[in-house]
């Protein structure tokens, strides 16, 4: 509003702008071509995201809190070290017995996740006779049907892929952090090196090659169940899991419709 003295000058400015944008577009096309070559040589061929719908579920009773999955995830995906960057982690819940005569159903609830459970869990200081019940809960991206994180991304850098994975485009993310604030489950973090949001990809580079995600591969007790809802195999573990158990999701009242299902979840788990 402030510039442009005459019409001629304005046209000249406009022309210059056009020329600049044209050269920019040329550079963009060139870069796109380079990327395409990279993609066709390295990425798995013939994977059609529309032909799959991946899902991971958890059987809380089977988790022994070894933390191997957390370690495997960090190794497989080169997740930054440090106790505040996790794509998956394990929480230990220790629910104490209520004070005698207190009339409560349960006592204090102690939750911890030292280094995300990556190094396993140290023995608890709570004496065994004071423990009402205790269990481990593995956490990762809840693959929400109505994902609040993709809803708030201002540029479309995070999205629900057709095959059910919720991904971040690290080359397009502006690093505003809105998705991290919007995720009710604390599943996202800002990568300190790349300065973009990061999260579980269901090991996208593995599942597109027919492998299981690293955490599923490494879990010694099959507490993590992974499968394709569009192509159930014989004795499909996902189908069996959903038939066998009464399942629950985390924070269902938020209306995020998580697809990740938990069997044997306690109400204290949030």
């Amino acid at each position: 509003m402030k510039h442009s003295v005459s019409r001629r000058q304005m046209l000249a400015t406009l022309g210059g702008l056009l020329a600049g944008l044209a050269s920019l577009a040329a550079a963009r096309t060139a870069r796109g071509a380079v990327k395409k070559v990279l993609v066709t040589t390295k990425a798995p061929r013939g994977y059609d995201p529309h032909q799959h719908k991946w899902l991971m579920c958890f059987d809380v009773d089977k988790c022994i809190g070894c933390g191997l999955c957390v370690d495997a995830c960090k190794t497989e995906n080169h997740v930054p070290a440090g106790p505040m960057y996790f794509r998956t982690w394990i929480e230990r819940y220790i629910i104490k017995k209520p004070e005698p005569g207190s009339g409560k159903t349960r006592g204090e609830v102690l939750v911890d996740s030292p280094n995300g459970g990556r190094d396993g869990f140290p023995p608890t200081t709570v004496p065994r006779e004071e423990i009402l019940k205790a269990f481990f809960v593995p956490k990762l991206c809840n693959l929400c049907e109505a994902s609040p994180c993709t809803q708030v991304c201002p540029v479309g850098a995070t999205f629900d892929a057709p095959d059910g994975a919720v991904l971040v485009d690290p080359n397009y993310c502006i690093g505003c952090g809105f998705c991290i604030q919007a995720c009710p489950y604390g599943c996202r973090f800002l990568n300190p090196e790349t300065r973009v949001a990061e999260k579980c990809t269901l090991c996208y580079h593995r599942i597109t090659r027919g492998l299981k995600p690293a955490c599923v591969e490494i879990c010694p007790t099959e507490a993590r169940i992974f499968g394709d809802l569009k192509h159930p195999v014989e004795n499909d573990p996902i189908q069996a899991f959903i038939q066998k158990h009464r399942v629950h999701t985390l924070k269902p009242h938020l209306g995020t419709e998580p697809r990740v299902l938990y069997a044997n979840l306690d109400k204290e788990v949030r």
Partner: protein
Amino acid sequence: MPPQIFRLVLLTLAIIVSYIIARYLLTPASFGQYGFYRAEALAEAATPEPVFAGRKACLECHEDIQEKLLKGEHKTIGCESCHGVGREHAQNPDVKLGKIGDSGCLRCHEDNGARPAWIKVIVVKDHYRGDKCAGCHVPHQPNEVP
């Protein structure tokens, strides 16, 4: 049209046109192909090489161990859960895998107050400590005694 309004209309048009042009030129090529994102991002996410080789890769040579493993309680455990990343070993058998110490066993079998009842746990200080775990237990066949 009054001159001041005319100027503003011109300016507005110039801004809108340059926005449309900029948008046309700067939008990534694959944007919107699948949804409101760069479709290329999917291929990029699929590009990195896997680190863990996976059970299938191990079975190419070690089917005998797998057969033993399936008979016992440790049948659900993947090879790389205990032996560590095996990709290099799978590509070149001369690259040896790391040794597994007692800490590998304790990771699952040490009591930490919250393990489910079905898993066998020990309290280290109360457990027989004369030898390494493998002195009494066979990891691939935990039901058997050496």
